[in-house]
């Protein structure tokens, strides 16, 4: 049914349709309405699950870990400082191969303290062993949650659904919310491969020394590599059921004959597509490559999508301080050893909720058309503010 919903409320609807058995979250900012809505559904009897009010995000992650290990479909949500506080548990959940699903409503991290959107939080946790998917709009975010549970439980790898805080979580959009029968048919009840029960005792989380640790990590790495195909398959099956396919790890937009390709992820894509349409009307050969999955990293698909371009500009809302945008570095790795490599530049935009306007994207694209030198830039910086901040620092 098509409904007009705020992003986080839409996600709550989709999560409830997945029938999680345990929901646990720490309630305050940087939390969203997702967990408040789930609590209300429980109070109204629309959702049948255990709901734990955690004393911190660290506990929230630990509770879903315990619930998942007991064989329950488990869900949590957080972002920003909350995600960083969870870091130790995030690695642990992945290492124990527990199929937890969480929403990350992407937001900036402190200092300076700032509650607004960028993607520094989840990008900083890209190595923790979770599948990471980035949604472009609310519909995709909702659909991704249904697919996320299916993928997580099939592969025993946890999945993080990343959606831009505020820009998606607090934006009201028309969303097609599927019926429960449809979701039940796509996503049957969770049947764990292993779980804690006195009927068949297992030991989980044992200590592995130098004699076995590396092999166990290698198995996780291999499972993650194999996940690429599973993600696409899952989306294809989803399309069969729901009539919507947005499952390729990498998606092109007006990219076939483009000399300049802009690469990005998340909600920036919407703005970028508008700018590219305008630039195309003006005769500029500019296109877009959207990265939907950061882990597993679609290296081959990106190489395929980008290798014919002369220039690539990676536009992202995160930075590896002292280097460049994180996604940009990873895209460079797709061309390691290639004889012909496009000139790849990094553009860091929109940190801490700074608006990314059409004219910022236009400036980046036109800049790359006129000067293809590889560079690292922060676009959209206010030089007056920069000057006064510098004075205070001195």
């Amino acid at each position, binding site marked *: 049914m098509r409904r007009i919903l705020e992003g986080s409320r839409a996600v709550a609807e989709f999560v409830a349709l997945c029938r999680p*058995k*345990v929901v*646990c979250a720490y309630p305050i900012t940087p939390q969203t309405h997702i967990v408040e809505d789930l609590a209300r559904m429980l109070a109204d009897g629309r959702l*049948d*699950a*255990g709901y*734990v*009010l*955690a*004393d*911190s995000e*660290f*506990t929230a992650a*630990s*509770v*879903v*870990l*315990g*619930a*998942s*290990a*007991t*064989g*329950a479909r*488990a869900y949590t949500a957080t972002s920003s400082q909350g995600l960083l506080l969870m870091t*130790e*548990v995030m690695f*642990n959940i992945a290492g*124990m191969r527990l199929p937890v699903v969480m929403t990350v409503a992407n937001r900036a991290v402190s200092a300076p303290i700032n509650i607004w959107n960028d993607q520094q939080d989840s990008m900083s946790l890209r190595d923790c062993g979770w599948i990471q998917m980035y949604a472009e709009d609310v519909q995709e975010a909702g659909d991704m949650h249904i697919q996320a549970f299916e993928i997580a439980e099939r592969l025993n790898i946890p999945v993080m659904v990343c959606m831009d805080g505020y820009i998606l979580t607090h934006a009201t959009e028309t969303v097609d919310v599927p019926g429960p029968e449809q979701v039940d048919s796509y996503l049957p009840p969770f049947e764990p491969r292993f779980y*804690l*029960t*006195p009927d068949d*005792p*297992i*030991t*989980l*989380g*044992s*200590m*592995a*020394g130098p004699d*076995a640790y590396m092999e*166990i990590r290698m198995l996780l790495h291999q499972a993650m590599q194999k996940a690429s195909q599973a993600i696409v398959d899952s989306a294809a099956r989803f399309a069969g059921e729901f009539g919507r396919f947005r499952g390729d790890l990498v998606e092109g937009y007006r990219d076939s004959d483009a000399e300049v390709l802009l690469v990005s992820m998340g909600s920036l894509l919407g703005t970028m597509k508008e700018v590219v349409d305008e630039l195309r009307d003006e005769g500029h050969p500019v296109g877009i490559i959207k990265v939907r999955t950061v882990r597993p990293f679609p290296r081959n698909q990106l190489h395929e999508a980008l290798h014919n371009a002369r220039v690539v500009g990676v536009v992202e809302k995160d930075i590896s301080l002292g280097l460049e945008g994180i996604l940009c570095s990873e895209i460079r790795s797709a061309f390691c050893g290639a004889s012909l490599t496009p000139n790849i530049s990094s553009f860091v935009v929109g940190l801490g909720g700074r608006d990314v306007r059409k004219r910022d994207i236009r400036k980046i694209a036109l800049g790359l058309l006129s000067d293809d030198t590889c560079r690292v830039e922060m676009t959209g910086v206010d030089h007056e503010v920069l000057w006064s901040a510098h004075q205070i620092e001195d």
Partner: protein
Amino acid sequence: MSNEQVESRLMAYGHTACAGCGEALAARTVLEAAGRNVILTNATGCLEVFTTRFPRSSWQVPWIHSLFENAASVASGIEVALKALGRDTGTKVIAQAGDGGTADIGMGALSGMLERGHDILYVCYDTEVYSNTGYQRSGLTPLNALTTTSPTGKMSWGNATRKKDLPAIVAAHGAVYIATASAGYPVDIQRKIKKALSFTGPKYVQIHSPCVSGWGVESHLTVRMAQAAVNSGLYPLFEMEDGEIVRVRKIKRDDLVPVDEYLRPQKRFAHLYRYPGGDEHVKQIQAVADANIERYGLLG
């Protein structure tokens, strides 16, 4: 011991604990009392390391270790999941951690578990030191004890603070049952575990568990050391229900010993008997014991 007895142990022998480990003795006793219908969580620490070196495990019951500070949170997730899945048919959830994993780094998680009212028994094996990582001081290290982070020297008599009163903190949360116990009295541990598990709601049992290597005592002295702690008044054994003390293990007049009896055999207190002025610090410890005797009415 017969083969049958060995095989029926829920925490199997063959683990890698030190000879004379008080925590191994206490944990085995806890599990024998709890029985098979349990799910255990375990904080990082000696108990986890010496029982589960991959690919072996001592645990004949479902057991999970996640991290150092979250044994109580993981247990909360298990308890809620069992209920949500309709599998809460008498299965007891027990969280286990050492003193550091409970009183220091795991304090927030424990507080949350207690406050939310989960039906979980939390067992703290109190070795009074971070045993697993090289004997550093924890919030339950006693006054004047030498540890690697409270060393003795010209300016120091060891740990300068008293043990955190954890049972009182747990009681303030409204835990339905609280007990202190001692590896020196395994039958008492069993009784208290069984009693704890007869209550619904959050329960807490803190077991004094000598760490032979951390305390610097001979491995055959584990039980004797634990008993001396109890019989000097340094480790009062009591039970609380709904915040009130309901039972205390009395020290018979003939069994009462001065704290010297407990302190002297331990290297962590050797400085008190080696350097001038040490007797004043022994007196401080005796004062702690005397205050316990008074507070809990231990003599009888």
